């Protein structure tokens, strides 16, 4: 990851955006550094797309300031910015050929026909679209269109690229491939990528830093690992997924909960909430030593790398545990059967602490 060495490329200062009475973004403060891959992530309506659109000048902030390269951009119209955006719908021009789409930005900047055709062809080659230049957009596959949209945005050699859920319309196998294309491209070009997504896996797989947003505010900023292992709030823990949350009162390294007492050496006395990731929960029939609670089995779900088992505690809380196929075979859980869910007391993360 490119550590911030100079002043940030982009900064949002107390940015507020309202549509009528609906507040989309509330007092947003965010710095985006040169050369970083930053992901804005959150559920729909959290303000991530509005933030991105304000950066491109497609929405004007109600108050606050957005600077790019030290210059306040609030009143600069979109066509005078250099902030190409890859749309969720791709927004390719259906009445232009592939190469005409790619050279559009150069045409608008007055680059001579010969030069812009050459530069567009170079990008088509780079995106492995050579031979498709005279095709119409509707003659391309989803993945090819995606690459045309990337080429069209990058042909003008911008300092940053904005991406608004660009992979959400693709098949699962293509998503993985395009993630590779995007991260490689970002490293090679060394430019800033601002990536909006609701997908935790996309954001965590690609981004240097992830910004979790909820209700128009930033809930947490950090590296994927930091956010995954150390969610600051219940909102982040739940949004990131596959986390179990347990609340109670700590006294002398032990937390009293509705499920009984569990050891919690790291926490101060008082009310606390802990997060235990599903991959750190062990399922067993006998009560193990250490931190454990009792819960009844609900169902299992095959999740590619493992199996997620769903449990319910006596007070109705849902718990998830990731097990391997062989573990599942030896447990042979039946619906309603009671198990002990245990974890290493040190691997529990205390929220808000």
């Amino acid at each position, binding site marked *: 990851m490119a550590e911030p060495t100079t002043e940030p490329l982009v900064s949002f200062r107390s940015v507020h955006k309202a549509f009528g009475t609906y507040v989309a973004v509330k007092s947003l403060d965010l710095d985006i550094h040169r050369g970083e891959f930053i992901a804005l992530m959150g559920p729909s309506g959290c303000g991530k797309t509005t933030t991105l659109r304000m950066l491109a000048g*497609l929405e004007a902030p109600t108050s606050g300031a957005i600077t790019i390269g030290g210059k306040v951009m609030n009143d600069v119209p979109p*066509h005078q910015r250099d902030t190409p955006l890859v*749309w969720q719908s791709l927004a390719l*021009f*259906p009445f*232009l050929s592939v190469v005409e789409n790619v050279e559009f930005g150069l045409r*608008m900047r007055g680059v001579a026909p010969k030069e812009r055709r050459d530069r567009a062809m170079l990008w088509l080659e780079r995106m492995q679209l050579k031979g498709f230049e005279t095709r119409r957009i509707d003659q391309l596959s989803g993945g090819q269109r995606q690459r045309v949209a990337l080429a*069209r945005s990058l042909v003008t050699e911008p300092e940053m690229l904005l991406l608004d859920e660009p992979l959400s319309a693709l098949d699962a196998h293509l998503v993985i491939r395009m993630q590779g294309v995007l991260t490689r491209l970002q490293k090679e070009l060394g430019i800033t990528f601002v990536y909006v997504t609701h997908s935790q896996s996309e954001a965590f797989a690609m981004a240097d830093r992830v910004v979790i947003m909820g209700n128009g505010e930033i809930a947490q900023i950090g590296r994927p690992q930091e956010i995954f292992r150390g969610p600051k709030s219940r909102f982040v823990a739940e949004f990131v997924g596959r986390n179990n949350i347990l609340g109670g009162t700590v006294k002398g390294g032990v937390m009293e909960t509705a499920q009984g007492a569990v050891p919690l050496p790291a926490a101060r006395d008082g009310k606390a909430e802990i997060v235990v990731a599903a991959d750190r929960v062990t399922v067993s029939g006998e009560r193990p030593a250490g931190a454990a609670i009792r819960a009844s089995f609900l169902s299992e779900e095959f999740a590619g790398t493992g199996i997620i088992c769903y449990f319910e505690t006596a007070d109705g809380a849902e718990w998830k545990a990731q097990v391997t196929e062989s573990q599942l075979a030896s447990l042979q859980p039946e619906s309603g059967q009671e198990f002990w869910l245990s974890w290493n007391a040190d691997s529990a993360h205390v929220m808000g602490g």
Partner: protein
Amino acid sequence: MTRKFDPYPHVWRLPLLIWQGAFFVVPLLFMAALSFWLVKNYRMEPAFAFDNWERMLGRGAFWDAYWLTLFRACMAGIIASLIAFPASLFLAFHLSPQGRRFALLCLIVPFFTSFLVRAYAWQVILAESGPVNALLGGIGLGPYTMLNSGFGAMIGYLTLVLPLVVIFQTWSLAAIDKSLIEAAANLGASPARTLVSVIIPAAKTGLVLGAVFAFIMTFGDFVSPFYLGGSKPPTLTILIIDTTKSGQQWPRAAVVAIMMILTLFAVATAALKAAYGRRG
């Protein structure tokens, strides 16, 4: 598996087929046949003679009327499109969907009144002593002769076609994916360049169809050239009326009508190709 014949869908098709067959295809064929008949002593006699075709197409007056009609229809298509476009842009991009629906409803209202009545209204408005000349007189201009001229006819044509052209254009402009317009700006296109490079190409189908409908309606209009254009020089529609009135020459009028149909067919085909055609 053999499927039993299901009469149900065909029953619904029948009325239209009967109607089109009885009142369009058969009369059309009859008209084609009629163009080869001969008129003797003011009576039509079935025949297969090329006499009518030779006389009509060999006449300078026919071709004068033909080119005049063609020229006026082209002009009406172009002028109506140009006048309609700013209005359509406004309706498509600056109104809420509800506002747009209301505006389009208002554009249909003119069709509630017979076009003939609207043409008569223009006769009053454009008259030598009418309100337009009175207004122009107020600033020391005129009076101008506006009726019984190509200008008068054009006012009539535009009255006939403008609402329809606006509807076509608005429909196609409003249907443009808004992200295309944003993408153009995002890629450095000023609003004026976005209009030329993205909005017009994206709305091409509706823009061409609007112009073609204006052409078709103008080409076959009789009211405007007759009541507002003074019928001299004659258009093809007026030529048809004159021909039928003079000595029962229905066969020669049929020749004019067939020439009109062939022209409209050629223009409509070319226009549809332009509207829906793609390159590459």
